């Protein structure tokens, strides 16, 4: 009977069994009074089942089906459990499988096995007792003792750390050596100087060293030769461009809004420049983080800091405009969610976004933590605002205001005249109305008949649009027919008759002719000509005798009133024999007006006197002059740093059950992350606190010296970019699902150093790069590779392929055509088309205006830019803390065949001739120096000279641009 023990014995049985045992053993076995029944152990039996299978959905933060299993309340209230009566307890039906079908609960994940169902049944039968103190929650895998949250440890036991003669770089080596020794591995010797300077130059600037730089270093006898190189590179503006690019990956910087419309954002680049400048200036990173979250409010009148807050809105967002209130609320929640994820991943290395619908499954992050951040960021909307010094604004306003006042004055004068003219017209309305005896214009069919006349050309000219009589340009025509005088009249306007229609139309670049004039004479309804400059002209193949015209924009439509059928309020039809001299055939002046606006427009036309005209013309001239002056004042720079919306920031804030804005749960306030309260002074703000205060509090809390997590995250990112892999392999996930550190002490040592250097990172680069670990060669050893293939322990320097940006910059650089102009609006390697939504077509030809560093490319989301996309430049839909490094045939095709390669090959060939003269041998040597920082071997000389002789230097250059040696650093 004990072979398959029930998970819990029925109470009576257990009782009797225990009694038997007690009896047999002859000893008392209960601490309690013998007549008191032992407690059913809810915590050991039922609770784990609920934790594992139920509360993820049925928690107070989710309440699927409006049921929470955190306590017994909902179960009792809804009759899911009837204590003592398993039969009547619906809960059991829900989890029990019938006929092998999946039971209705749990909806997701594994179902309860029969033992577990038996436990629940037994528990119910025995009164369904649920100790009051027990609240059932899904437990995250990691808790507050998780390594990443703990204070920095600096009590290292390494001798090197304690020795006063050790430099920080020595300490790094000591930490690395310790792990190498444990694994029986050895560090490689120092790399060759040609290799080393290539590595350092790419690492700090993303560019290859020049031949002169290589030679200078190779021939520098001083002991600190490499140190000098590092210092020179750190001082170069190219450093900020390269490391700025790294940071832009982390903060998911992209210059279009993504989603359906994906419109380019043309004023986000100042943030890119701000990042580059900040990094070049070695701005303390805690300050940078504070500026990212609250740069607009840290100090008075600091536009240079305010630009930093563009971080908040640098991600994708849905701006399509949804009338459905439920969906609109969801979209708003998604928008804030994006900001929460970006913030928590970039600075905290935590995937707080996972706590949107329920407490984090793996990390000790509560759903209410997530919604505290939601409250913190609730006032931010995507958009632009003027970012300038107060003084500049005041000066600008002083110039603009008088002109604006003048404009207003002139406009009201003009309006007054127009009103008066209209009133005069209205006074004679009855008189006019007697003349308006024809049917009004009809979108469904408008007909004009007239005595037969001969014409070769016929033209419809708009005098106004029915929806807006002031607009004489746009209208729609689904069909326009011109009838001849035959017994059975023939439509001579038909294209099939040989007629041709012309007229400017709405243009869609990637679908030419979508709304062209040919649609007005194609004999078919449905598709329409959309005029954009007010005319439709039809040329017949030969002069025709005509007597009737019919046209429409909504023929046979049941709802002709919709905007898509926009038509005419008044028109003129003219004919011509030569297409140059026109005479009026008929117009709409005798028709009844289509609406009041059309009537008024017509009345105004009729009652404007020459004096009115004169006055109006004068006013219009003056207005034009004022407008010209206004245009001459340069507008204040408007930057996409987001808009602060006090209404949106107004509480109260609730957590959303199951992540749904339609199901508000408990109240939350802007506050710090719960789990870190044990180490970092926490904060909790009033719901009424000003929006900016919340952001500033969050920023201060993140960079608080006691908050070790962001410090670890930052130094790990730096290590990651130096060695290709971080000490923690998942740079934006320091939680349970992320990787654990390979060298935890080293990580803390670096973090401590970051604090010492007041969050300035140049000194970190220096100490890392001056270590022997960094300077070792990348030589491969099969024995070592068997132990540690990826060299995570750093027994060698891990070689890497260049990034997409580095590859393009390198090609431009070796060809001598890289334009080092910094900052300002970016260039584009795609053709941008906008028609309601946007389309990006990669360019086949890249002009010299694109020969800037790739960091200045205006990266649009969901656009493909051959070389860049193929070499793993991220789409920036999300933060990209580490790039992938793929090798594909498409890369080869692009590198071989895109015109960019040929252009650069030509430039490089020119440079070789220019700098090395006409002797092929010299050209080839120079090419090798530029591309590979060395001389060619004799074989290489021989082969390439022959090749160049037969196929030209340009062809050789194309080959060199495709070599692996050009795009791998060791």
């Amino acid at each position, binding site marked *: 009977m004990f072979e398959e023990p029930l998970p819990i014995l029925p109470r009576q049985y257990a009782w009797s069994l225990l009694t038997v045992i007690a009896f047999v053993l002859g000893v008392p076995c209960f601490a309690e009074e013998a007549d008191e029944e032992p407690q059913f152990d809810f915590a050991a039996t039922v609770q784990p089942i609920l934790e594992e299978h139920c509360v993820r959905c049925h928690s107070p933060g989710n309440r699927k089906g409006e049921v929470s299993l955190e306590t017994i309340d909902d179960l009792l209230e809804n009759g899911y459990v009837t204590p003592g009566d398993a039969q009547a307890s619906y809960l059991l039906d829900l989890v029990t499988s019938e006929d092998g079908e999946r039971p209705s609960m749990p909806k997701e994940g594994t179902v309860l096995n029969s033992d577990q169902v038996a436990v629940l049944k037994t528990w119910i039968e025995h009164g369904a007792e649920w100790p009051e103190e027990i609240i059932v929650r899904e437990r995250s895998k990691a808790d507050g003792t998780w390594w990443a949250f703990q204070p920095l440890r600096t009590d290292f036991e390494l001798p090197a750390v304690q020795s006063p003669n050790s430099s920080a770089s020595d300490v790094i080596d000591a930490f690395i050596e310790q792990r190498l020794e444990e694994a029986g591995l050895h560090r490689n010797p120092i790399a060759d100087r040609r290799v080393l300077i290539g590595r350092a130059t790419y690492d700090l600037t993303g560019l290859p060293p020049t031949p002169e730089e290589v030679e200078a270093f190779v021939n520098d006898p001083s002991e600190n030769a490499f140190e000098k190189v590092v210092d020179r590179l750190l001082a170069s503006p190219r450093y900020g461009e390269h490391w700025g690019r790294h940071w832009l990956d982390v903060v998911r910087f992209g210059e279009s809004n*993504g*989603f*359906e419309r*994906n419109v380019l954002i043309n004023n986000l680049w100042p943030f890119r420049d701000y990042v580059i400048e900040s990094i070049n200036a070695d701005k303390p990173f805690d300050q940078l983080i504070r500026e990212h979250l609250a740069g607009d409010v840290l100090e008075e009148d600091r536009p240079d800091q305010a630009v930093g807050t563009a971080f908040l809105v640098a991600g*994708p967002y*849905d701006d*399509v405009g*949804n*009338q*459905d*209130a439920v*969906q609109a609320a969801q979209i708003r929640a998604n928008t804030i969610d994006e900001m929460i994820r970006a913030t928590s*991943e970039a600075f905290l290395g935590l*995937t707080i*976004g*996972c706590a949107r619908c329920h407490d984090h499954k793996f990390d000790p992050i509560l759903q209410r933590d997530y919604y505290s951040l939601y409250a913190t960021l609730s006032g931010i909307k995507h958009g632009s605002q003027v970012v300038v010094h107060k003084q500049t604004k005041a000066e600008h306003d002083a110039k603009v205001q008088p002109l604006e006042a003048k404009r207003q004055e002139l406009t009201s004068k003009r309006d007054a005249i127009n009103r008066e003219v209209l009133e005069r017209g209205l006074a004679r309305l009855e008189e006019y109305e007697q003349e308006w005896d024809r049917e009004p214009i009809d979108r469904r069919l408008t007909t004009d008949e007239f005595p037969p006349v001969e014409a070769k050309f016929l033209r419809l000219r708009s005098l106004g649009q029915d929806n807006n009589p002031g607009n004489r340009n746009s209208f729609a025509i689904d069909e326009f027919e011109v009838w001849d005088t035959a017994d059975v009249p023939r439509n001579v306007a038909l294209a099939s008759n040989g007629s041709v229609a012309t007229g400017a139309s709405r243009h869609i670049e*990637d679908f030419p002719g979508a709304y062209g004039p040919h649609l007005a004479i194609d004999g078919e309804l449905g*598709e*329409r000509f959309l005029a954009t400059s007010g005319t439709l002209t039809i040329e017949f193949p030969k002069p025709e005798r005509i007597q009737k015209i019919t046209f429409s924009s909504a023929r046979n439509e049941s*709802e002709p009133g*919709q905007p*898509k059928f926009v038509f005419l309020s008044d028109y003129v039809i003219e004919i011509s024999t030569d297409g140059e001299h026109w005479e009026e055939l008929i117009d709409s002046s005798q028709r009844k007006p289509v609406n009041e606006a059309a009537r008024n427009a017509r009345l105004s036309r009729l009652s404007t006197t020459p004096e009115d005209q004169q006055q109006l013309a004068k006013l219009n001239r003056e207005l034009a002059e004022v407008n010209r002056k206004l245009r001459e004042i340069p507008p204040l720079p408007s930057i996409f740093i987001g808009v602060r919306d006090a209404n949106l920031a107004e509480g109260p804030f609730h957590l959303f059950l199951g992540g749904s804005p339609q199901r508000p749960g408990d109240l939350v306030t802007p506050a710090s992350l719960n789990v870190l309260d044990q180490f970092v002074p926490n904060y909790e703000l009033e719901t009424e606190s000003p929006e900016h205060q919340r952001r500033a509090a969050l920023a201060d809390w993140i960079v608080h010296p006691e908050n070790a997590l962001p410090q670890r995250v930052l130094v790990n990112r730096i290590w990651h970019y130096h060695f290709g892999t971080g000490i923690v392999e*998942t740079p934006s996930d320091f939680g349970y*699902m992320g*990787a654990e550190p*390979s060298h935890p002490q080293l990580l803390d040592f670096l973090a401590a150093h970051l604090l010492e250097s007041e969050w300035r990172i140049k000194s970190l680069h220096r100490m890392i790069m001056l270590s022997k670990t960094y300077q070792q060669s990348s030589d491969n050893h099969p024995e070592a590779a068997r*132990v*540690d*293939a*990826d060299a995570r322990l750093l027994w060698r320097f891990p070689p890497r392929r260049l990034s997409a940006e580095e590859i393009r910059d390198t090609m431009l650089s070796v060809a001598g055509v890289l334009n080092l102009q910094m900052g300002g609006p970016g260039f584009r390697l795609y053709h941008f088309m906008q*028609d*309601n*939504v946007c*389309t990006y077509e*990669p360019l086949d030809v890249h002009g010299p205006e694109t020969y800037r560093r790739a960091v200045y490319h205006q990266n649009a*989301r969901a656009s493909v830019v*051959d070389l860049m*996309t*193929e070499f*793993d430049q991220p*789409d920036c*839909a*999300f933060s990209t803390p580490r790039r*992938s490094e*793929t*090798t594909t*045939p*498409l890369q*080869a*095709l*692009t590198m*071989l*065949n895109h015109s960019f390669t*040929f252009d650069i090959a030509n430039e490089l060939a020119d440079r070789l001739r220019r700098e090395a003269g006409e002797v092929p041998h010299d050209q080839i040597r120079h090419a090798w120096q530029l591309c590979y920082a060395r001389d060619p071997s004799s074989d290489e000389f021989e*082969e390439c000279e022959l*090749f160049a002789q037969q196929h030209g230097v340009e*062809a050789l250059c194309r080959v060199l641009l495709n*070599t*692996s*040696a050009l795009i791998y650093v060791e």
Partner: protein
Amino acid sequence: MESQNKNEIEIARRSFLGNVSAGLAGIGVMQLLRDASICGAQDWKAGQGQTHFEPKAKRVVQIFCPGAASHMDLWEHKPELARYHGKPLPGEENYVSFQGKNGNLMQSPWPFVPGGESGKEISSLLPNMSQHVDDIAFIHSMTSKSNTHGPGCIFMNTGHPTEGFPAAGAWTSYALGSENENLPAYVAIPDIRGEPPNGKANWSNGFLPARHQAIVMSNQQPIRNLERPDFVSEQTETASRSLLDRLNQSYAESRPGESALQARIAAYELAGRMQMSAPEVSELSQESESTHDFYGTRDSNSLKAAYAKNCLFTRRLLERGVRYVSLYCASRASGVDGLLNWDAHKTLKSDYERHCPVFDQPTAALLSDLKTRGMLDDTLILWTTEFGRMPTHQQGTAGRDHNPDGFTCWMMGAGVQGGVSYGATDPFGRRAEVNPTTVWDFYATVLHLLGFDHEQLTWYYNGLDRRITDVHGHVISEILT
């Protein structure tokens, strides 16, 4: 090539270096371990044609009609709409959806007619498709998370309404690798009118390595950068490729064990083979006259002819071992009218009388052709759209607004029952009522047919082992053979 991805995090998580000791060279070992971890104890390997279990389908073609093709005007007959035409939708009078207020119920402008032995009624606008209903499993109870085209499309393609996630084809490419190395594993064929809403995000690799993104090709638009420019002679090209190969070989040889360098040499060889094979696939002139007529590639309707060519092109891709083809019929919303896609807000009747003839014959021809060639046995055909349309007309118009609460998709071919209809919306077509089905259920089923347990096909990215089915999804076993 597989060796180049850097998703070896599992290992570090499990215990750093604990596992990294087995034999073999370099990254290959890491790969092996990672793959083993993906599938627990099983030794399934990604990208090598292996599956979790015996597959029914070897390849997939997903036909996508963007713009939200109306379920109640094409696939799911709602007779009640005719009975209650002009009356308010009970319980949802003046309902505000995506573009604004709704009017009263509106019947479908066209009759539905029964087809096949199953007698399944579909719209009379689709006479050719009607001949295939006995082979199709309709899912009439689909639901979406978004009522906006862009997010809706990428939700339908990636299982997530936000950008940055891999499309089903990218997951397939990752899971199976390519069958024919001279062609991509995953091809997207946009409509001649342009890209669907949200463009390239619909066939993105997301966080998977870049090589899993779809290669965009169509009969109108070849693979970019495929051809060498005319000014490079064949001689020069041959000599260049051979010099390049030698330089790259010698660089790699002096660095033994760097598999990335070998991979790059292989990539150039592959590129060369692709240059040979890709143009051949597009050679529709190899097809017979009758085939062209059957598909309608020379139809006077230029949109139809272009789509027909892409249908024929699709068959040629599938025959040559492409694993996943996403074929689009229509493009983005134009903002003016329903000219570019199935988004019939204002004039349902004239819009669909334009779109259906483009879609009907060529699609039906593709299905027939695959069937005749015996390819239906192991080819899975999907028909999808991003969501459905309202049973009411949009106020002041004769069109329908967006409806994410109920719509139709269908499957056909490998492992799928024919002539069945699974799930249903309510009598008006407003909401999925019988067996509501999610996009995740849909892809759980697709992966199942491809031989994969959707819960086991994962990729670690930022905090989670990601799946196309997120944390959801049940296989719709009712429609399987």
